[in-house]
């Protein structure tokens, strides 16, 4: 607790912690000193002079800026004195000299601090009658943001945000005096991934969003407190709608999640919500083509096929989605377990990913950790807002960063990067462990694990030589790890998936164990509800609550809740299903909000007996389907999502779904109500059977009903209700899913390049060509063009030229791509981003991440 001091404002005595800024202390007692440049998240500057107050000093009463003056004992402040009022009115008059006063056409008009303060503190009339300065209006500084230099009051908030948080100072002050303008360096538009935050921070209408430009006036909007579902962080947003259309998304402050930031994808890429290509009615395959049908027809067709197929439940499968709500995922697995008796339930990045299923320890950990070990994670591309917290930790708390990645990523500038070749990550991690074990304290902590130690020492004798790493980098990394008091280990799907995923994660866990930080190992998933889908039991071997199928008491408890029996045998994983499909072993596949066909799985899906897809768009998978069900987006239905720190948050309905699209929970409820068992139960002549034998009838009237059941069934979600979730959500404690980690030897994955010359790595990028992003027109230029990234050294060896079309071949496919020199890619590897137009990377992969061997050849 900081020392408290007493001071007075306008005669009122105030107590505040010493060093608190005057403007903040005044706010707490209800005096709102007007500000422009001052912002709670930015360092004090004192640029706009709007917050002038009088302070008793040694030389009498002086005007000071309250946003830069810390309170001290006995300070005497006059806010409402004549001189202070006149000073503020004068400042406003000066700020308005060159302001164009085009409020009627300004997007900020109606919620503009300059407008409000001019009304409250201004004189109403100006002494200045001269011609105003003319500067650039309608000046795009990036694909997202429009700058109007005339409206700017030069408060520097945008400059400071980009400098202090984003650490990409791409805006600067140009010229002098009354001609001062904010500008970008010529030819260098903003490319910061969270640049949209400056639009929200701008206290005037100088920075406006190009996506929602002129499409609303603030007073017309209805507000819904919701979430962003573009990534796993679950940033809190406010959805602003007008006449059933989403007009803009704003960050909603939640100190536990996104503070008050949003990334540009989350803020601007909402064009998909009301895009004309959304599905608006069910489609049914008749005579080989998909034709519009009624819901009755479509659901009857699905039920008829499914009833028939369920006679062989092992030939029925369902793919859930980490992009849809907990409720939909819960009902999907319940339907298939309870009625169809199949455990063939999984989602992309589900059981094929090696993870403890607990996400990251907590987002707040970013404010405490002193070492971040980023293993196969590109935070700037995948979770830009979390990346802000990392940058903050590095720049403000001097936290260290150790990156283990086969490719240089943006965060490489903050620390040491160890670049193992694909497949050698385990060797590197074991090398680090072995080096750490030379430290006595650490060896002591490891205890009597002589077997492990001997195995380790045997395995990694000369890691630097084997891995082709510089001795100083490796030594630096070891020293970093040894010194760390509170390390945080993070790994991504790029290393946790694929053939070597399990080994990678075990090796990282071993390293964390040696440092006594095993509870600070976190997994960063890509999709919004990756954690929730796990918790809901959309896994072939786990029931809701991530309960293993062998847990008899939990299973019987679930059977009491559901009625009926739960199948005991683990089902097929996501990849297993697709492999089974390719073999023609699937009679029925239900795909909810997932698009395996876009990842080179069309051939397998064509062999599925009956394919049902529920999605927002006519995806590649939907094109192959027998029945396509139009689903509602998350803003069109109530639902809850669980983010990467296990925080359950709610996303209420903000707009109506287009046409006859319906939310997934409702679709599944309708399917369940058509199931023949329902008729059987309703039949009065039915013999009274033993309790728990017959599945219960579904009678959900709303997603809240489903959530109620989830709260009963899923132990971690016990007691959760829609109302109790509130605006901030609730986090379930990691201890609810206990870990029993111990040091274990890791079998080195056997990856071989065979006759291929390179390793191909594929990772997600923020601006991909997926429908959720590409449907926002303004983002089109930002979508990465399909290309294969290659190091200049490899380029020279292969005697190829930049921009040349080349043939990239892997054991799984072959595509033609232009070459792009990218020094971030290490020699011997090729990088192709995932999710680009034409899905080049997906065609080369075998359905999972992780490196695949590849070679490149010039096209003749």
């Amino acid at each position, binding site marked *: 607790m900081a020392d408290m001091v007493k001071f007075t404002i306008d005669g009122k005595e105030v107590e505040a912690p010493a060093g608190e800024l005057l403007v903040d202390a005044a706010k707490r007692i209800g005096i709102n000193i007007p500000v422009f440049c001052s912002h709670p998240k930015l360092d004090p500057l004192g640029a706009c002079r709007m917050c002038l107050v009088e302070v008793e000093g040694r030389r009498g009463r002086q005007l000071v800026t309250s946003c830069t003056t810390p309170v001290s004992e006995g300070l005497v402040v006059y806010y409402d004195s004549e001189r202070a009022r006149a000073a503020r009115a004068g400042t406003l008059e000066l700020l308005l000299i060159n302001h164009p006063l085009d409020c009627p*056409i300004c997007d900020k*008009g109606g919620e503009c601090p300059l407008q409000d303060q001019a009304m409250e503190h201004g004189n109403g009339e100006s002494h200045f009658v001269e011609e105003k300065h003319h500067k650039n209006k*309608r000046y795009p500084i990036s694909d997202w943001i429009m700058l109007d230099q005339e409206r700017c009051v030069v408060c520097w908030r945008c400059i400071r945000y980009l400098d202090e948080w984003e650490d990409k100072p791409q805006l600067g002050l140009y010229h002098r005096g009354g001609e001062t303008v904010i500008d970008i360096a010529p030819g260098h538009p903003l490319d910061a991934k969270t640049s949209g935050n400056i639009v929200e921070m701008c206290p005037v209408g100088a920075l406006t969003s190009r996506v929602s430009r002129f*499409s609303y*006036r603030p007073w017309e909007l209805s507000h819904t407190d919701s979430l962003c579902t573009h990534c796993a962080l679950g940033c809190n947003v406010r959805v602003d709608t007008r006449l059933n259309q989403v007009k803009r998304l704003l960050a909603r402050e939640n100190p536990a999640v996104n503070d008050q930031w949003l990334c540009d994808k989350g803020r601007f890429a909402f064009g998909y919500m009301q895009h004309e290509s959304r599905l608006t009615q069910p489609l049914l395959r008749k005579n080989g083509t998909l034709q519009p049908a009624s819901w009755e027809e479509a659901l009857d067709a699905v039920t008829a096929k499914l009833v028939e197929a369920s006679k062989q439940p092992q030939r029925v499968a369902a793919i859930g989605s980490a992009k849809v709500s907990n409720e939909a995922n819960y009902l999907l697995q319940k339907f298939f377990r309870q009625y169809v008796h199949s455990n063939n339930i999984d989602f992309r990045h589900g059981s094929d990913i090696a993870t403890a299923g607990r996400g990251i320890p907590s987002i707040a950990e970013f404010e405490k950790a002193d070492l971040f070990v980023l293993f196969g994670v590109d935070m700037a591309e995948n979770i830009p807002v979390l990346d802000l917290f990392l940058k903050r930790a590095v720049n403000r708390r001097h936290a260290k960063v150790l990156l283990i990645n086969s490719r240089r990523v943006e965060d490489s500038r903050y620390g040491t990067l160890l670049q193992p070749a694909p497949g050698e990550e385990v060797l590197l991690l074991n090398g680090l462990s072995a080096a750490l074990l030379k430290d006595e304290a650490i060896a002591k902590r490891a205890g009597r694990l002589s077997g492990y130690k001997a195995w380790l020492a045997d395995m990694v004798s000369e890691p630097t030589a084997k891995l082709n790493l510089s001795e100083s980098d490796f030594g630096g990394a070891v020293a970093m790890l040894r010194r760390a008091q509170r390390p945080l280990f993070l790994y991504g799907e790029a290393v946790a998936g694929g053939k070597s995923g399990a080994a990678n994660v075990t090796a990282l866990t071993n390293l964390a164990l040696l440092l006594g930080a095993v509870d600070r190992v976190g997994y960063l998933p890509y999709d919004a509800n990756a954690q929730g889908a796990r918790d809901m039991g959309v896994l072939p071997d786990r029931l809701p609550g991530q309960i293993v199928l062998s847990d008899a008491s939990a299973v019987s408890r679930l059977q009491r809740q559901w009625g009926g029996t739960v199948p005991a045998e683990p089902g097929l994983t996501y990849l297993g299903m697709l492999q089974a499909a390719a073999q023609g072993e699937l009679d029925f596949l239900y795909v909810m909000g997932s698009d395996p066909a876009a990842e080179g799985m069309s051939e397998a899906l064509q062999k599925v007996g009956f394919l049902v897809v529920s999605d927002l768009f006519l995806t590649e998978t939907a094109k192959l389907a027998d029945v396509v069900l139009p689903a509602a987006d998350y803003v069109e239905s109530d639902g809850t999502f669980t983010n990467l720190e296990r925080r359950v948050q709610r996303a209420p309905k903000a707009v109506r779904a287009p046409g006859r699209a319906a939310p997934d929970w409702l679709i599944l409820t309708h399917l369940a109500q058509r199931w023949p068992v329902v008729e059987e139960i309703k039949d009065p002549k039915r013999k009274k059977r033993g309790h728990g034998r017959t599945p219960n009838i579904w009678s959900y009237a709303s997603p809240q009903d489903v959530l109620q059941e989830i709260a009963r069934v899923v132990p971690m979600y016990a007691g959760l209700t829609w109302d109790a979730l509130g605006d901030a959500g609730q986090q379930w404690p990691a201890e609810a899913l206990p870990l029993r980690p111990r040091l274990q030897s890791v079998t080195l994955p056997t990856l071989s390049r065979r006759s291929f010359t390179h390793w191909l790595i594929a990772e997600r990028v923020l601006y991909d060509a997926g429908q959720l992003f590409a449907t926002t027109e303004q983002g089109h230029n930002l979508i990465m063009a399909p290309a294969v990234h290659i190091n200049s050294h490899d380029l020279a060896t292969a005697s190829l030229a930049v921009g040349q079309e080349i043939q990239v071949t892997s054991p799984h496919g072959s595509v033609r791509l232009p070459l792009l020199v990218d020094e971030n890619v290490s020699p011997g590897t090729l990088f192709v981003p995932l999710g680009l137009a034409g899905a080049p990377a997906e065609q080369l992969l075998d359905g999972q991440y992780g490196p695949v061997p590849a070679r490149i050849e010039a096209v003749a």
Partner: protein
Amino acid sequence: MSGLKELVESTQQLAQAMKITLKAAIEPPLTVESPVEPIAVYPRFRGRHELRRYENGMERCIGCALCEAACPTGAIHVEAAENTEEERHSPGERYAKVYEVNLLRCILCRDCVRACPTEAIILGRNYALANYHRQDFILTKEDLLNPPEPNVIIRVKE
């Protein structure tokens, strides 16, 4: 005698009545053959809405929606868009892509006119607002920009 008195009185009353009748009979008629003949309105008569243009043909309306905000009955609907070099509707950056007035809601209070920063919307003098279908009472931007010439005579202030 009462009979005579009655006769005189009734004749007087009849004459008085006939005087009014005959006077009205020779006066020109007060009724107007609307809409064939023009009607006389006061200068500040508030009739059907009109959107005005500048002399160079540009629309005055900038789509700021202040009229919509001011409207007490929610009769106005505005959707704005951005002018481009190829397609310019108004002098500034912004114009009204959609501008609709619902005459069934409008109470002709003139608040929209007062709210307008560019004096784009005015209440014209067209009073003949009857229609056969409800949807015809919604004036589109096209209707508002091209108002029919009202058949009126403006009264001179006495």
